[in-house]
């Protein structure tokens, strides 16, 4: 009995190294498959398109990684993005007469987006840490609230950014630096900063400790509520940032903006190897997860092999597979 207990850990200790590479291998496999199926797949245009579309979900998913790692969950991010987008556009339209079309107006809009995102995240975080309500319930509630608020603000239709402002704002999505689109650059910065924060700062370490066992964290002088609150605020800010990059793409927001983003973000986090029950987070894995999800979409459209309508089926299978693999690891 004691022999088995001694041998087991040695085996499980080696496993994570291999299984951590699983999502990366899947990503490489997808790239090879894509290149094989369609010559255009590796063209700069297509790669830029895939990455830029991934960027919104990606930034949100990086924030979601911290929330989930510390044992929380946020279902409200998709609705929150729509709400932030709506408020941002309304604010810019309202400020237009006073400020005129110009960079200051765009900057003011961005500030509004970040502040609204921060406040929305703060609301979620306070409800979780102060009112002590389950994160699932809190964010299920705020998901409905944000969604209904944007629909109400848009009066059931669409909120559109003033045409002149839109023309000025467009390059934030469509142009870039050194041939790389802005959303991709911003996403890259967010991902790298997130990876460093998770691995090399107290905040990341505390997130893992709280997700692993919040009682131990409390007994170890960790400010559990403060760290939890911070994860939701950070996620809210990143939703604001994602919205800043998203609004110039279409220049409008409606009741259907950001639909199901929350599920895509959560799926990316899980596929990337972050434990859904918390305690272990891997930001680079989340990035890989986001890329896997968008590549599946892209390949299906390009390859004409399977109907793109089956996109959701394939994504669903991958999510379930990722969790099954995770469970196999933890119960070994």
């Amino acid at each position, binding site marked *: 009995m004691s022999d088995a207990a001694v041998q*087991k850990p040695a085996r*499980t200790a080696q496993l994570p190294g291999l299984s951590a590479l699983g999502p990366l291998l899947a990503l490489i496999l997808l790239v090879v498959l894509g290149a094989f199926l369609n010559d255009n797949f590796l063209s700069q245009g297509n790669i830029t398109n895939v990455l830029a579309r991934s960027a919104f979900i990606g930034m949100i998913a990086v924030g979601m990684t911290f929330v989930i790692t510390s044992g929380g969950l946020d279902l409200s991010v998709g609705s929150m993005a729509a709400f932030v987008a709506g408020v941002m556009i309304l604010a810019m339209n309202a400020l237009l007469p006073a400020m005129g079309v110009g960079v200051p107006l765009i900057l003011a809009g961005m500030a509004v987006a970040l502040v609204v995102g921060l406040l929305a995240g703060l609301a979620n975080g306070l409800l979780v840490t102060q009112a002590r309500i389950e994160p699932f319930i809190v964010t299920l509630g705020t998901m409905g609230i944000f969604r209904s608020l944007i629909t109400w603000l848009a009066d059931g239709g669409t909120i559109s950014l003033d045409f002149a402002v839109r023309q000025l704002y467009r390059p934030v999505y469509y142009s870039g630096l050194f041939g790389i689109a802005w959303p991709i650059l911003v996403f890259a910065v967010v991902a790298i900063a997130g990876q460093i924060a998770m691995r090399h*700062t107290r905040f990341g370490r505390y997130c893992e*400790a709280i997700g692993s066992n919040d009682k131990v964290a409390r007994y170890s002088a960790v400010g559990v509520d403060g760290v939890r609150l911070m994860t939701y605020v950070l996620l809210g800010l990143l939703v604001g940032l994602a919205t800043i990059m998203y609004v110039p793409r279409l220049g409008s927001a409606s009741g259907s903006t950001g639909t199901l983003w929350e599920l895509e973000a959560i799926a990316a986090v899980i596929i990337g190897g972050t434990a859904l029950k918390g305690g272990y987070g891997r930001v680079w894995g989340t990035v890989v997860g986001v890329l896997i999800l968008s590549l599946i979409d892209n390949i299906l459209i390009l390859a004409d092999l399977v109907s793109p309508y089956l996109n959701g089926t394939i994504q669903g299978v991958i999510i379930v597979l990722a969790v099954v693999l995770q469970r196999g690891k933890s119960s070994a």
Partner: protein
Amino acid sequence: MAAAPMLELREVRKSFGPIEILHGIDFALHPGEVHALIGENGAGKSTIMKILGGFLPPTSGQVLLEGRPVPYASGAQAEAVGVVVIHQEFNLAADLKVSENVWLGRELGRVFLDHRAMRAGTQALLDQLDSTISPDARIRDLPVSDRQMVEIAKALSRKARVLIMDEPSAVLTHKEVEVLFRQIDRLRAQGVAILYTSHRLEEVTRLADRLTVLRDGAVVRRALRGELTEDGMATAMVGRDLQDIYPARRHPMGEIALDVRGFSVPPLVQDISFTLRRGEVLGISGLVGSGRTELAEGLVGLRPAAGQVFRNGASVHIRSVREAAAHGMAYLTEDRKEHGLLLDKTLRENLTLSTLPRFGSPFISAAREETALTEAIRDFDIRAPRRDMAVGNLSGGNQQKLLLAKTMLSSPEVVIIDEPTRGIDVGTKSQIYAFIDALAAEGRSVIVISSDMPEILGLSDRVLVMRQGRVAGELDGERICEKAVVRLVMGTAEEPAYV
């Protein structure tokens, strides 16, 4: 008594790994008798109960039911033949109703549940117990004493022939204990064989027809009703020389480092006052549930508390572990698996968790953490096969050493150590005692909370005994002796006459 034993252990030995816990136990429960099993914590009582109840197989020896080897290999199978254990941690589903719990696993009715019959059956059982609990109440909403009653009702519904009760009175009020005793008397009259354990010796005197005293995994005394006084029981339970695993104490003591006055941690702990000097080891003794841990957790800000605390003469108000650390106080939890260590994390992450700001800001220096771990492994003799292993895979002793190393990283001046050696082998114990002694020698103040009597006696310069949330007494110098502590812990009588 002439009746043949109902359930019997013969020459039973039990080992966990290389360590033998029970050394050849002979023990028998007779129909229509209450047999009390007493002994200090760790004497082997619960292991015996688990073997009798089918939860553990003996390593060698026989378990006989009515003279034949027992036909069960699990608690559930044992219940099916009428051997029922009432555990200290209740086996009740908190969200189900009383009647649903009573019939759990043996529900009445074929396709659909026969709610009416189960409810009526439960009502009848509760009436038998003179209990006013509603069969429809949720377990969650019941006080602990009522849950105990439900457990007993459940045992009755299983037509128990053998009832094994693990400290049933520990959670009951005086009045409820009386009801419990009447039920035990009634069951005895019906011919049920009953095993009863309790730390309250007066209950043993009142109930037991037969008595077995256990010490260090062996039977040291058997007696029939009236043969042994409570004092005699305590002596038999204790009767052990302190081994020299304890360090030679007596360090010069300095000024008062901690002064606690009228300290309360609601709802249990009331009006505690004591002082602690530099270089002193204060032992806190008392039963589990006497408020020792709550007191400690209140002092370091883990629980809301009221009262005055002075550190080095200055009044302090500590509301969190972080504030406690700022005032040079640290608490080492009794529950290292649930409150002390992140079992799925590595040694390094655990070691530095409570002092992370010292390891670099904004970025944690992994190199500095590794250095700290190397020092901790050396200073505390932590034996880990791999540095990067999950601490859940370490032995209990090494986990405890790591927890000690983690606590000491903040270099606290006042260290409260709760059950320093629970579940730890003797070799590691003496190491931990040496660490504690070294802390005092360095001029730090140490509070040791322990249920292990020899440990309290071997380590403490002074002993504070708690009972039901209050200070039952304080002993120092020559007055520290096992009998005196046991008396205060049990609340048996006034302090004995000392020689």
